[in-house]
C-alpha cells in the first residue's frame, strides 16, 4: 500500500510542473495583457507599471522569479487588477468560503444522493423508486444557473425566508441556497449511480447465497451489498469533490458569496496573471490530491487494483 502511495506522489509532482508551465505559456499567448484597456495607457505609464511588476523581463525570467517566490516565501505574487491585495490575500479570503459551501454540498450530495439511490434500489419499481428516479432526472436536467435565480425568487422575494445572497461571515442563512444550487446535480448523479450499482450487486450470486442462508435483509444490504456497490460511486466522488470545493463561478456570481470560483474566471478575463497562476496551482494541487485519495480508497475497497 505504501509503495502504491509513493508511486502516486511521484507522478503527481511532474504533473503539477507541467500544469504550471503549460498554463503560464497559455496565459502569455492570450491576446492583450493585464493593462490592456479601452483607454490604452500612454507608453511611459505602461513602461512604469511593467517595470514595477517585472513584466518587462523575458518570459522565462518571469516564470523563474514567480516559482522562486513561491518556493522561498510562499508568495504567489500581487494581483494586477485588484491592487490593494495579493494572491495570498485572495486565497486566504475566498478559499475558506468555497471550501465551506463545497464540503457541505458534498456531504449533502452523498447523504441525500446515497440514501435516495439505495432506497430506490431496495424498493425497485415501487413509488419510492419512481419518485427517486423522477427527482434525479429533474435535478440533472436543471442547470444551476437556472436553479439559482429561481431559488432566490422563491425564498427571498416570495417567501422572504432567506437573504438573496452574500456571505456575511458564513451565517447559515447565507449557506443554504448556494448548497442547494451546487449539490443538486451531484446528488442526482450519486443517486443514479448508487441505484444502478446496488441493483446489479443485489442480483449477484453471493447475495443470492446470503439470502438462501436466511440472513436478514438489513444485514445483506449493509454488510454484504453496500461495499461492492460503492465502487462506481467512489470513482465518481473524487472529481465530484474537486468540482465542489474548487469553486463554482455560477454560485459565486449569482449569490455573491466571495468564493474563489469567480476570482478564477475573472482573472482569466482580466489577464490577472499572478491570480490565475496562484489559483491554477491551488486548484491543480487539489485535483491531483483528491484523485490520489480516490485511487487509494479504491485500492482499499478493491484489492485487485493494488496489483
Amino acid at each position, binding site marked *: 500500500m505504501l509503495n502504491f502511495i509513493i508511486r502516486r506522489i511521484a507522478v503527481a509532482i511532474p504533473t503539477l510542473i507541467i500544469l504550471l508551465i503549460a498554463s503560464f505559456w497559455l496565459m502569455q499567448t492570450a491576446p492583450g495583457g493585464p493593462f490592456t484597456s479601452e483607454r*490604452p495607457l500612454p507608453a511611459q505609464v505602461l513602461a512604469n507599471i511593467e517595470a514595477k511588476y517585472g513584466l518587462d523581463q523575458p518570459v522565462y525570467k518571469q516564470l523563474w522569479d514567480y516559482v522562486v517566490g513561491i518556493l522561498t516565501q510562499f508568495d504567489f505574487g500581487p494581483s494586477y487588477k485588484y*491592487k490593494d491585495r495579493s494572491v495570498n490575500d485572495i486565497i486566504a479570503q475566498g478559499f475558506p468560503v468555497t471550501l465551506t459551501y463545497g464540503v457541505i454540498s458534498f456531504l449533502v450530495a452523498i447523504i441525500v444522493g446515497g440514501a435516495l439511490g439505495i432506497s430506490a434500489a431496495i424498493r425497485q419499481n415501487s413509488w419510492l423508486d419512481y419518485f427517486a428516479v423522477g427527482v434525479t432526472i429533474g435535478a440533472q436536467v436543471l442547470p444551476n444557473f437556472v436553479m*439559482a435565480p429561481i431559488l432566490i425568487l422563491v425564498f427571498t422575494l416570495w417567501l422572504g425566508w432567506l437573504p*438573496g445572497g452574500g456571505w456575511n461571515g458564513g451565517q447559515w442563512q447565507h449557506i443554504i441556497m448556494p448548497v442547494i444550487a451546487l449539490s443538486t446535480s451531484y446528488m442526482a448523479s450519486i443517486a443514479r449511480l448508487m441505484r444502478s450499482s446496488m441493483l446489479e450487486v443485489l442480483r449477484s450470486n453471493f447475495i443470492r447465497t446470503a439470502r438462501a442462508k436466511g440472513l436478514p435483509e438489513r444485514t445483506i444490504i449493509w454488510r454484504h451489498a453496500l461495499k461492492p456497490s460503492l465502487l462506481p460511486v467512489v470513482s465518481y466522488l473524487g472529481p465530484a469533490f474537486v468540482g465542489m470545493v474548487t469553486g463554482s463561478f455560477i454560485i459565486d456570481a449569482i449569490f455573491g458569496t466571495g468564493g474563489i470560483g469567480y476570482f478564477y474566471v*475573472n482573472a482569466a478575463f482580466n489577464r490577472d496573471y499572478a491570480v490565475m497562476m496562484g489559483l491554477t496551482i491551488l486548484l491543480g494541487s487539489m485535483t491531483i490530491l483528491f484523485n490520489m485519495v480516490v485511487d487509494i480508497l479504491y485500492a482499499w475497497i478493491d484489492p485487485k487494483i493494488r496489483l
Partner: protein
Amino acid sequence: MNISIKAALLGSAIALAGPAFADKMHPTTGEKLAEDQTFTYRVLDEHTSVDPQIVEDVSGSEIVRDLFEGLYNQDKDGNLVPGVATGYSTNDDKTVYTFTLRDNAKWSDGKPVTAQDFVYAWQRLADPATASEYQWYVEVMNLKNAGPVMAGEAPLSDLGVKAIDDHTLEVTLASSLPYFAKTTTHASTFPAPKWAIDEHGTDWIKPENIVVNGAYTLTEHVANERSVRERNPMYWDNENTIIDKTVALVINDENVALTRYQAGELDRTEIPAGQYPALEQSHPEEAVIFPRLCSYYYTINVSDSAPEFLKDVRVRQALSYAIDRDVITEKVLQAGEIPAYTFTPGATAGFEVPAVDYAGWSQDERNAKAVELMAEAGYGADNPIDLTLLYNTSEAHKKIALAVSQMWKQNLGVKVTLENQEWKTYLTTRGEQNYEVARAGWCGDYNEASTFLDLVQSGSGYNDAKYANEMVDSLLADAKTMDNPQPNYSKVEEIIAADMPIIPIYHYSEDYMLSPEIVGSWPVNNVEQNWYSKDLYKVAK
C-alpha cells in the same frame, strides 16, 4: 451600582438620545427622515482599490469619493462646490492657481489636512515608482513638468505643485487651462496620508489601517462580496451628514440584483437591458433614467490596413446614413438612450450640439442619400460590399449589431459578417487595426467636450480608426486655451460628420431602480454621476 440608579441613568440616556431619533427632519427640505440611514447599493464587480492614486474604476472611485475629499466636490447638478478648498485665485493668464484650504479639515486620526498632503498625493500620482494607471492624469491637469517627472527624468519636487503654508496650495501649469478647478474633483487628485502609507505600505487602505479625510471611513471589506463605509466623526461637516452607513454589495448578475432589490435588500440597482418599459409601468417612481456622458459608436478602420472601400468617404457616409438610430434606441434598447448623429453628448457642460445636416433629415431621406452615395462609389447589388463587424461578446452589442447589419443589407445590399471576441482580445484587435468596422463606447473622463473630441485627434492613443485630419488637430489644439471653445468643437463635429471615421449611434442613459426612500436625493442631474453618500438621505416611508 444599584438597579434604580442604573434605571435612572438608562432613562436619562434615552431622554438624551430621544429627540435625535424621533421625527428627524432634513435641515433644508424639511422632509421627515427615515430612522435607518443605511444606503445599500449593488455593484457589478469588485472595485480595484480604494487608494486615491491607484483606483482606476468607477465603483472604486465611488468609494474613494466618500472616504477622501479633494479640493472640490460636485453638487447634485455637477457644479463645483468647496471640498477641502474654500476658494482659489489665479494669475491673469490662468497658469498659476492658488487654493485656500479650510482650517477645520481633519484626518480620521485627528491630524489636520494640510497643503502638504495634496503635494504629497500629486507627487505620488506622478511618481513612476507608484506605477498608477492614472499617472497620465497629471498631464490632463497640465501640471508644469508633468512629462519629465512621469518619466523619472526630473525630481518629484519639480512638479508644478507646492505648499506655500499649511493652508495654501499653489499649482503651476504648463500652459493656461481655464477649467483646471474642475479636474480636482477626480479621485486621483485627493490627498493621501503619508505617515499611514509609510507605516503600512500597500496595506494602508485595509479597514484596520486606513486613515481618511472624507465623510466616511472604511469599516469592512470582503472582496467580491461587500464593502462597508461608516461615518467619520472627524469629518469637518459631519454634523450635516445624514447617511450613517453605505454598503456596496457585489452582485454580478443584474437580474438577481433586481430580484434582491424587489425583496428590499437594495436601495439601488441597474435596470437589466430591455426591462425598463415594464418596470416603468409597475414602479413609475422607482424606475429612473437620465442621460450620461457616454457615446456608443462604430469606429471605421481608415488606416493603411483598411480595405479600399472603407477609404472612400462616400461608403462611410452611406453606412452611417443607413442606420436608423430611432429603431436602435426605441425598439432594441428601450431605456431612454438618445440617438446620436454627433459624437459629444448634448449633456456635456458648456457644449451645444451643432446642427449637422444629416441629423435633420428623415430616415427615408437618409436611406435615399445612402443608396445614391453607394452607387456613386461604384457599389450595389452587382458589386456588393462584404464587411466584417467586430464587437466584444455581449448580448446587447449583438442585438445592435444584428439590427445594423439588417439595415445595411436591406438598404445598401452590404453583406455583413458579425464577429464577436472576448474583451481583451477585442481591444487588441481593435488597437492593432485588424478590423473593418468595430463597436466602441466612450465615457467622458471629465465634463468637457475635449474628453470626447480628443479621440479623433491624429496622435491620440484612443483613435482606433487611425483617422488623421490636420484641420481637426489644430482646431482642438487651439480649443485648449480658449475661454469659449464651442466654435472649434462645433467645427470639429461638422468635419467628423462629413468624413465619418466614426459612426455615432446613441448616447447612453443611466437607468436605475432607486428605492422610494433614496430616490428624492439622488443626483439625477449630475451627468458624470459623481455622487457622495454625504449628500444623500433617506426619507421616512
